[in-house]
Every structure is written in C-alpha cells, then in structure tokens.
C-alpha cells in the first residue's frame, strides 16, 4: 500500500509541469482528510521510552490566490489532530511491563505556502512549500501507569488508569507551533468548482515543551495529511 501511494505521488509530481492555472483566480473551499502524525525526539539513555505515530483527521477551509498563471499563495484555516502514543517498556529479571499514554492533540493552524501550479484543460497539479503557524487547542490523554496500591490477590491496583483533558501548564506547554509545510495536489475544475486531492507534510520546528533552559529534551510533532475537498472559484478565471 505504501509503495503504491509513493508511486502515485511521484507520478503526479512528474506530470505537474504539463499544466498551469489562471492568474487572478481566488479559491475558497472545504476539505477533510486523514492525518498521520509522528514525534521527533531523542530519548537518549531511556531506551524503554518510545513514541508511536498516531492517526487523526483534519478539517480545513483552504484558500488560494493565484498571483500569476503558475504561482499562487495558499492559506486557510485548518483544524487537525496530531496524535501519538508514548509508552515505556520496563524490563526486569522477573517481568516486562509496558505503560503508555495516548495523546489526542487538537491544533488550529494557519498555513502559508507558495505554490507552483500547472493546468491543462480542467486538470491542475500544484506543488507548494511554506510554513504554518498553529495553536495547540486541546489535548485529551488516556493512559496506563504504575500504581502503588495493590490488592492482596494482585488483581487490582497494580496499574493506575486515567483519561481526560490535559490541563495545560503556562510554564511547560508550548501552545504555539511553527513549522515547515510541503504540499502537492491534483485538481479537477468543473466550471467554478474545483475538486481537490491534496497531500501535505508538516514538519514541526518548535518544541512542544518550553520552560527548560539546559539539557532540555526537545519534542517536535510532524504530520502527513491526505485530504480531499472542494473549492469555489470567486473570479478572474478564464
């Protein structure tokens, strides 16, 4: 499945130079998609610690302004989930225990990208690059951790379970996110309406944590988004 996806993406990229859009067109639309997000960090000596990628969704209001036949400015407002699961595997002589915490993180982001688009008839293909600025709106967490109040039969209390919304710390949680954005999309125009298939990669630059000056372990989140949507051309089209 992964190979097929890569082949499709590469094919679109290679065919892109055949097409171009119309200068002056303005597009606003609605899109939704699937988000595959991952964490970049270095756990160092904590070899039991791992961060597994998570799955989420996105809902966007994409906006495009064609400053030229081939060059556009893409922006919009995105709501997306950048989820992950942290876990710790503890190995002792007698046992292997795994504890975990699932993070469902909701972000509101403003992307800004410069795009190169090529159009042939009704089909367009675009490649874009830029950045995004986001706000970490909410974080729902659910986890299993080591307890300390165990029943005599050992069946209750060995682990503690919890779930709920994280209470953000002004001191430690970096609510504002910034990163790089890379995009490619395939569009099909039906008069003023454009159907869109888009693949984006958001590479986090900012640390999810703050407030530690020295030897601070950095944690960044990245997201690969596959979305489909519909845009309306507000004018200037040929």
């Amino acid at each position, binding site marked *: 499945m992964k190979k097929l996806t890569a082949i499709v993406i590469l094919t679109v990229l290679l065919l892109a130079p055949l097409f171009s859009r119309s200068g002056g067109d303005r597009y606003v639309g609605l899109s939704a998609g699937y988000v595959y997000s991952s964490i970049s960090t*270095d756990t160092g000596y904590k070899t039991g*610690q791992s961060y597994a990628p998570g799955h989420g969704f996105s809902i966007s209001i994409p906006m495009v302004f064609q400053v030229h036949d081939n060059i556009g400015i893409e922006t919009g407002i995105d709501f997306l989930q950048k989820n992950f699961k*942290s876990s710790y595997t*503890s190995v002792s002589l007698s046992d292997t225990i795994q504890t975990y915490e699932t993070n469902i993180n909701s972000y509101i982001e403003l992307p800004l990208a410069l795009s190169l688009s090529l159009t042939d008839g009704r089909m367009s293909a675009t490649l874009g690059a830029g950045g995004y600025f986001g706000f970490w709106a909410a974080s729902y967490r659910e986890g299993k951790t080591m307890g300390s109040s165990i029943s005599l039969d050992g069946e209750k209390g060995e682990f*503690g379970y*919890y779930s709920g919304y994280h209470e953000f710390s002004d001191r430690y949680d970096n609510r504002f996110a910034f990163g790089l954005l890379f995009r490619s999309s395939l569009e099909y125009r039906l008069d003023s309406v454009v159907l869109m298939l888009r693949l984006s990669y958001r590479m986090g630059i900012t640390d999810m944590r703050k407030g530690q*000056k020295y*030897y601070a372990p*950095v*944690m960044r989140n990245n997201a690969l988004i596959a979305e489909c949507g519909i845009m309306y051309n507000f004018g200037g089209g040929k």
Partner: protein
Amino acid sequence: MKKHKLTLLIITMLVFLLCSCSQNSPVLPSDMAMSGTWEDLFKGLWTGLSDNYVFWDLDDANGEWDKVYEEFIPKFRELGNIDTSDRVATKKGTILLFDSVKNLSDGHFKMDAFGYSFSPSEYRILKKEHPELSDQEVLEIIYDYYEKFDRLPADMFYEDSKSIMENTFSIPLTTTLVKTDDFIAKYGSLYFKWDESGKCNALNPKIQLRTPAYGEAIMLYSSSHKFGSVTTYDGEILDFTSDDVEAYKHPEVSFPGKAIYSYGPYYPVSDLSWEGEEQKLDSLFSDWTLCLVLSVSPEYDQTGYKKGVNLKMLALSGITKETDGRAMVDYTANTVYFISSGFNFLPLKDQAEMKQFLMDFHKFKMNENAAGMILDMRGNGGGYNADREILFGDMFREPHLIGYQKNKTGAGRLDLTQEFPLYIYPEADFYGNEFSDIASKPVVVITNTATASNGEITVLMVNSLPNGGQTGGVTIGANGTLAGDILTYNSGKFSVGKYITSVYTPYGNIRDTNHVSYEGKGLTPDKGYEENFNSVDFFAGTDSRLGKAFEWIKDHR
C-alpha cells in the same frame, strides 16, 4: 523556470539547515560524570533529577531548577578535578552538592555522596528548629552527622513504637543488662556485647530465650492467652492455664492426647516484665495482643557460639476497657488501638503466627461495642503499600479512595500522567468475608516528626473517613511511593558514578482526596489537638499525645 528552480533550491537548503538543529540527547547521569570533574559530577546529578524527579510541579514553578544550575555550575567548575585525597576540597564539594538540592520538597529524598548523606527534609527541620543558624551552618551540621542529633526534634529519635512500649506501657523490650554470675547462669546461651564495665543494652533475655536456634520468630503476647500456648499439628491453639514453669516445659502433660507441633504463637505475658516492673497494658486494655518479630542468628564470643537475637518489628493492638477511666492517661471506653514499628507485614502475612495477630486486631475492630479507633503512627516510617490492605482491608466493603497519584511519562520535567485514584481494597478472602464498621466511627491517628511514607498515607486514609482526624505533631511530608529506578520505572532512584552512590527519590507523586500535596510540608494535626513532645514527661511514663488522642475520640463520639 529559472525562478522556480531557485525557489526549490532555497527550500531544500532551508530544510537541511533546520534538520541539522541540535537535539539534546539525554545522557545517563553516571556517563555525564565520567570526566572526573566536580562540574560534570554536578551536571550528572542535575540532569538526572531534571529528567527523573517527580515533584517538579512543586519545585520548578518559577524556573528554580535552572537557576540552581546557573548558580552552582561556576562554583563546581572552580573546584576542578575530584581528588578524594584532598579532604578539604572533597568536603567543600560534598557540601556544595548538598546545597544544590536542599530546597527539594521530596520528603523521602536522600543523597549519598562521598560517604556522607543528605536529606532536604532534615535540612528543613533543622532550619525550622534553629532559625538562628545560616544555611551553610546547617549544611555543615548535617555533613558532620553526629552534630545533628542534638538539634533535631526529640520526638524524631526518642518517640517510636519501641520507646512507647518501654515508657508508656512499661514493657522494656530493650533494657540495660549487667553481667553477673547469676545472669550468665540463666542466659549464658545468648549473645551479648558487653562493654568494659560489664553492661550492655539488649533485648529482654526472657523473650530471647523463647526463640528457636536460628531464623525468624514471630512471637505473640496476649491478655487472652496470658500463660502462653502451644499449637497442635492440626493448627489448634491450646492455652496453658497457669504460669507453672514445669507445666510449660512439659506440654504433653498439660495437654494429654494432643499432638503438639510447637510452642506459641502466644508466650507467657510474664516475659514482658523485667526486674519487677510490670507491664501496664492490662490497666488500659480489656484485651490486647503484642506481636514481636525477631531474627535469630549464630554469634561468636570468646566462650563460643551463642544465639544472637534482634528485634526486627513490633506491633500492638488492643481495645480499652468498657468504661471511661484513667490508666497512664485518661482513656475513652471501647477504643481500639493499634501501633506498629513499620509497614512490614506483607512478607509475613501468611505465617500462622502473624495471621493470628492480624485476626486478633480484626477481632477488636469487629467488636460490636467498639466506639472508635486510635492508629498510632508515631515513629512509623512506612513500608509495604500492600500492608494498607492487610491492616485496613476489613474496614471497607468497596474500594475506598484515599488519594491520588501521578507519575512521569517522559524526560520533560512536567511530563506527568494525570492523577489517578488510589484505593484501599476490601480483603474479603483474608478476613473470611467479615467487615468491620469501625471506619464509620471516630478514628484518629497520632503522628510525630518521624511519621513518614505509609505512616502518612494512613493519615490520608483517616482524613478521608467521615469522622477521621489527626493529633500529635506535624509529619515529615514524605508521601511519594518508591520502587525500581530510572530505567525500570522511568523516574525515581539513580546514582551518579562512584561518588554519588545513591539518589533516593520516589517514582510516584501522591496527594490527598482533595488533590492537595503535602510533600515537604507535612500533615498537620487538627486544630486544638496539637500536642508537643515533652521528653521529660514521656520518659516518666506520661504519654500526653496518647492522652490527646483519647480526648479527640471523646470529643468526636
């Protein structure tokens, strides 16, 4: 097309530039200190705590830990390489290490460095007791070790289960013995470390004589079995009916037709007195059981191998008489009382003798006339978490909430789980499906400066009850839970190479049912029921804190 190529090139360069941003890779504290300099030793300690200490929500609210780094790095840098043959520099560096962690809230925290130990809780207590001393003076007193004992509160060392047995209840478990011919004739098989004047402090020899040749012994003394007992092969307990020594020596005569397995679990109450001083438990309690856990090992002196006996643990439970009265203190009727030296019941719970003691305690809680309970946690520094179930699992039919806990999830200082509930679970199997309603009656806990860890969690439990309270003195503020280390539990204990051999700190951060943490602050007695420790009165037999607990019961029944 050239413009597009340029754009693409700029983007690619930017990506590579950003990807090469440095990312701190956490280093094992011991590896951090490998260079052998004071600076790197401190960095190992500082980063080890930064990654693994579980109380940063209390101790880093305003960037305090980064400020510690900034303040102490130049001082350690100045010390250069570690050279333990330079005693002056080593002392200076060690005290500087103490100084860097003195403000941590963790009440369990203990650092062993260069053969010396430091606890921020002792520092806090010394500063409170002696505000006239500077920070440096207090650190030097702690470094000196022996100097601190005179300055720490008296109840921290002199008020515990053993001294309460000796002074309040007149049961001198440890007593001063004098080497005479008569003494050696009676007790020559036992090991004593005599000083030059022919004296030693040791466990009551009458108790020592009852123990087996080696191993561990659990011995019970009870008002319900005052002359001792034997146990048959069927597990039946048969009581002796008099203090006839010969009858005791020949149980087959006292219990004809019974297959005797062993002496015990109960032993003659007369063992508890020494040199004419009679125990006072009978003046307070209508029924009581004392449990002693002893270790026995062969010891060698100039006359050969002897039996060496040491007291490992003690516990007492009882119920006061049926009407209010006065014994060593004014007491309230039908009040259950419990004290133990620590929470060390878990490894012993299935041994028949310990189960018997626990069933006796259970019997007192189940007494339909029981009007309340006193849990005496003075000198109790905690122990096994599961002991909460063993001791209190017959008091609740449903899991009973006693507090909340959070743990670390990552190396960031505030990478913490959300709070999850801590319960005491009902133990129907252990207690034969019999549950006491004592938790709905007045229950009070007596505390002092040495009450710590599970001793304090017992206070949290009592405070969660509908009619629970606390008397005595402020506790130490050590509520965290300990196990494993930074590699097995992702937080907690670690060491920093060969010089800081242990940094002892919990993996779990515990707070009460109102989500309030008392770490580093201690739990405070109810207003109006605080009672200072008066060592003169206490050693003379007047236990005012016990009296205050009975006053609390009387006021709340």
